[in-house]
């Protein structure tokens, strides 16, 4: 006990019917059922207190598998009431809510349930898993700011909600209150909700139609990162839809099934309830693990085959590499450092031990630099690279073994700074010993780098604050805050109001925008060109590039050249990031 993010209770919704009318959670899986597989995974994760929500028609069948953990709920509102009751029950740790028919790796669940950094949070996949008819969410800076459900619209979504919602002990009262409110509304959905479901029907019909046109070139997309977000674009979310498309009979059948399943999705509704209550709902990603939610025996059989193609350890190791690292780190260090991380994991090293080793190597590098001799500069360069590799290993080791701690994050950050500045000192001492003092350059370099970091910290803090300040509309509203704001702007622009503007369709006609926004949009657009994102990351002079620049210039030239390069590249990076931030600040 004592861990405020621990989860010991699960609410499994086994309410969705498969295409043959049976319970989807009871689809066959390796001689047993999907539900048994999931319950086994939950037990392995230390979750023994389980409630399985079922419809009356499937009660007997589910009871055969889940025993007295079954609770019968006639409809979605009853599911939500059951969730509210469980959340309001006294005592206990966190709760996880998830559908009984999902098939995924245990590590995908562990990534959410066992990560102390995620208090209340959810499992997300890539934004373009549209074929799965998932509800989508918009997340920013590791937080869900808007979520969709059968009855709720999320403006400009970035990811797909994979059905798993973790609610920490501290947030249980919020879950109890919001699920109770949702239950009242779901019993008799308000008009705005029904309109939204109707809109989704059209959207799905359309995407099925488009998928059929596109034939079979489905591009697998990673579930690691959000799709690039254009934060100032509140234009139309979906391409305009041709009306009255005709679907193939199979697709028509699929659509009917999805439409029957959608309003049963108590998990998606519970997520909306948490987000709309202003709770900080964090984000865990599926990474490259397997996930499916079969609703037919055929798709369950397909999942059973597909999941065997996954080398889970390789996937975990690959996704231990941070996606947001710079060019040098990604292509010259992480390519091999992940194997050192795996080796360290098997030898039982902790991330903090590795971090400390990295600091010591960094200090050795500085000592070598301080000799001012050629051999010292070369040795320092090599040692500094060794220190940097070790530094990458600690984070990868932490992610690979899921051993995160705040102390570890702090040690990692503070030791990074220490290594860099100790090497500055070493280089300057060495230069003095060699008769070419560069202390003024060393001072300039440390001032520049610290100022750059502080600009990053403050800009980040400001962005996080903005996200926290978003006023979430109540769950009665189908639209999220951004869509409501867009609708209001649209209404204000229509000077002679057309009073019968149909159901709020969050699509906005193109309009002239201020120059700063147009520049920013163009800036985001060129990200799609190959290599541009890497160039941009290099331009910001991240740590990998800095350490590489120090090593190369010190080994080949001398400390003076090192500092001049650091100041020149760093100065360029200041201009580069500064112009971006000023534009954003003006555009806001």
């Amino acid at each position, binding site marked *: 006990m004592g861990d405020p993010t621990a989860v010991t209770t699960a609410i499994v919704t086994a309410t969705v019917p498969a295409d043959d009318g049976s319970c989807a959670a009871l689809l066959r899986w390796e001689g047993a059922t999907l539900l048994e597989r999931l319950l086994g995974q939950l037990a392995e994760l230390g979750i023994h207190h389980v409630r399985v929500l079922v419809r009356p028609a499937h009660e007997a069948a589910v009871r055969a598998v889940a025993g007295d953990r079954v609770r019968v709920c006639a409809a979605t509102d009853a599911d939500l009431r059951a969730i509210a009751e469980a959340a309001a029950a006294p005592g206990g740790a966190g709760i996880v809510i998830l559908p009984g028919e999902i098939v995924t790796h245990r590590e995908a669940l562990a990534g959410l349930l066992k990560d102390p950094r995620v208090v209340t949070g959810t499992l997300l996949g890539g934004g373009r898993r549209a074929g799965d008819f998932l509800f989508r969410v918009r997340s920013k800076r590791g937080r869900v700011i808007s979520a969709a459900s059968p009855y709720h619209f999320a403006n400009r979504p970035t990811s797909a909600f994979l059905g798993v919602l973790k609610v920490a002990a501290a947030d249980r009262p919020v879950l109890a209150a919001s699920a109770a409110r949702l239950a009242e509304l779901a019993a008799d959905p308000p008009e705005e909700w029904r309109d939204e479901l109707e809109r989704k029907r059209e959207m799905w019909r359309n995407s099925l139609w488009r998928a059929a046109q596109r034939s079979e070139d489905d591009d697998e997309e990673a579930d690691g990162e959000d799709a690039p977000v254009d934060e100032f674009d509140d234009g139309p979310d979906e391409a305009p839809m041709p009306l009255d498309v005709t679907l193939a009979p199979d697709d028509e059948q699929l659509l009917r099934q999805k439409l029957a399943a959608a309003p049963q999705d108590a998990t998606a509704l519970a997520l909306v309830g948490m987000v709309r209550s202003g709770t900080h709902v964090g984000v865990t990603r599926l990474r490259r693990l397997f996930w499916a939610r079969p609703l037919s025996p055929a798709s369950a059989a397909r999942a059973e085959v597909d999941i065997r193609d996954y080398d889970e350890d390789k996937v975990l190791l690959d996704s231990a590499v941070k996606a947001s690292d710079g060019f040098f780190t990604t292509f010259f260090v992480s390519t091999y450092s992940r194997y050192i991380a795996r080796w360290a994991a098997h030898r039982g090293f902790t991330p903090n031990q590795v971090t400390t080793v990295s600091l010591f190597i960094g200090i050795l590098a500085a000592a070598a630099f301080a000799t001012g001799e050629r051999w010292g500069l070369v040795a320092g360069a090599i040692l500094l690279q060794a220190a940097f590799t070790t530094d990458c290993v600690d984070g990868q080791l932490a992610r690979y073994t899921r051993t995160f701690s705040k102390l570890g994050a702090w040690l990692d950050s*503070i030791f990074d700074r220490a290594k860099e500045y100790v090497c500055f000192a070493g280089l*300057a001492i060495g230069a003095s010993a060699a008769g070419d003092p560069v202390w003024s350059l*060393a001072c300039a370099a*440390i*001032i520049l780098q610290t100022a750059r970091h*502080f600009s990053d910290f403050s800009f980040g803090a400001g962005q996080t604050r903005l996200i926290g300040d978003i006023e979430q509309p109540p769950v009665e509203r189908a639209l999220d805050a951004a869509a409501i704001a867009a609708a209001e702007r649209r209404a204000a622009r229509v000077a002679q109001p057309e009073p019968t503007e149909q159901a709020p369709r969050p699509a906005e006609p193109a309009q002239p925008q201020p120059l700063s926004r147009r520049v920013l949009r163009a800036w985001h657009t060129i990200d799609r060109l190959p290599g541009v994102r890497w160039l941009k990351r290099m331009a910001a002079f991240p740590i990998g590039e800095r350490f590489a620049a120090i090593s190369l210039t010190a080994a080949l030239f001398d400390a003076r050249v090192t500092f001049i390069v650091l100041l020149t590249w760093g100065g360029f990076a200041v201009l580069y990031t500064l112009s971006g931030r000023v534009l954003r600040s003006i555009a806001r």
Partner: protein
Amino acid sequence: MTATVAPAEQRPQLPDSVAVYRDDGPIAQAIGSALGRRVPIPAMALLLLGAGTILALTAFAGSDASLGLTAAGVAVLLLTFGITNARYPKESFHWAVPSLVRIGEYTTLAWLAATADALPAAFALIAALTFRHYDLVYRLRHRAEIPPAWLNRLAAGWDGRVIIAWLLLALGALPAAMYIWAGLLGAVSVAESVVSWRRFERSRATAGEFDEIEGEGE
């Protein structure tokens, strides 16, 4: 964006990060409360003026600057930055404030030391200060805390530090005194940080952010 903040804010409000990162001492606060509302110059202009003056003096007068000129530079910095203690620029430009304060402070320290040929001592002091300042950030981010009052008093704020550095310069105590200062400040800051981390790890609180936000987590 949304200008209104929900009235009944239940979430615990973190201390304002800009105020924490600035690391103002009592003198800057006094200047801010005395002059902050009276001087009709925008905060951003004052910050740019202060940092720009120091950078220009360092670049052009450099190590040849007289004691009087350094005094004038310190006075300009205290006045311009001090006034902005009470007055912030537009919220969307808040992110620029802490960097400008750091540039102003560190450059002043380096410039003062340079006039006494004591740049290595200035590097040592700046390095010790970077520990304090990074620690302000990480403490707020991971633990939602600010340093104890006694440590802040001891660190004296950027305003106190530039005055002390100038006094040491005037007394002819550079570089020795600056090395000692750097050593003491660094040792106390590191020790306090380690102790408070141990206390925090024992209490296992959940306060504070705990995520690797892209870019700044580097």
